[in-house]
């Protein structure tokens, strides 16, 4: 019940296109859904996060869409650029709980390549 399933495993998008990465979770206690971006040799960096009280959050070219009833959330990268080429991880946790409940459960990652 702690799993977060992420797809696709890899994605190739042309410059200017839209990149879409999907995640699904099972634990209904999850109430915090961040996305992390990781470049080779670097640690994951927080990109954008959403709470389930809203269905969408946008920051620049990055948008999270959240569907509470389906227990799914997705990351959309508009106008994808070669500099966006990285691995993206979705994650989930239950905020405000005990320390155990607040730990992040990560998806398996999506390697995005944006071509010219």
């Amino acid at each position: 019940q702690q799993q977060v399933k992420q797809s696709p495993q890899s994605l190739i998008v042309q410059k200017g296109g839209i990149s879409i990465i999907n995640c699904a979770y099972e634990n209904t206690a999850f109430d915090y859904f961040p996305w992390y971006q990781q470049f080779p040799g670097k640690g994951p960096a927080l990109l954008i996060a959403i709470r389930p009280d809203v269905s969408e959050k946008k920051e620049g070219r990055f948008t999270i869409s959240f569907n509470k009833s389906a227990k799914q959330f997705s990351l959309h990268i508009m106008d994808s650029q070669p500099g966006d080429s990285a691995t993206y991880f979705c994650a989930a946790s239950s905020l405000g709980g005990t320390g155990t409940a607040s730990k992040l459960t990560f998806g398996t990652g999506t390697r995005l390549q944006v071509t010219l």
Partner: protein
Amino acid sequence: EAGVAQSPRYKIIEKRQSVAFWCNPISGHATLYWYQQILGQGPKLLIQFQNNGVVDDSQLPKDRFSAERLKGVDSTLKIQPAKLEDSAVYLCASSLSFGTSQYFGPGTRLLVL
């Protein structure tokens, strides 16, 4: 604001040897996490500290892994003895407190031969 610092960045050891990793969190961050990231997978939490106390170590292989956070600031993660399957990137992260955004360090890449 300085980020999470980790050292060393790379380590190569032979199986059955011991190794230690060091982490310095962002100043003022009370919560510190150690994750293991195996190639091609997402990070997996090994242990979580709140100040100098352990909050969650349920996924830490305690027969070989140990961690401490003396004085509630820096932390060390030790593996003794190492196994081939311990080859991974060990990430340290910190957050202001429970339920706040986690910030990751660059990681230590461990190769066990």
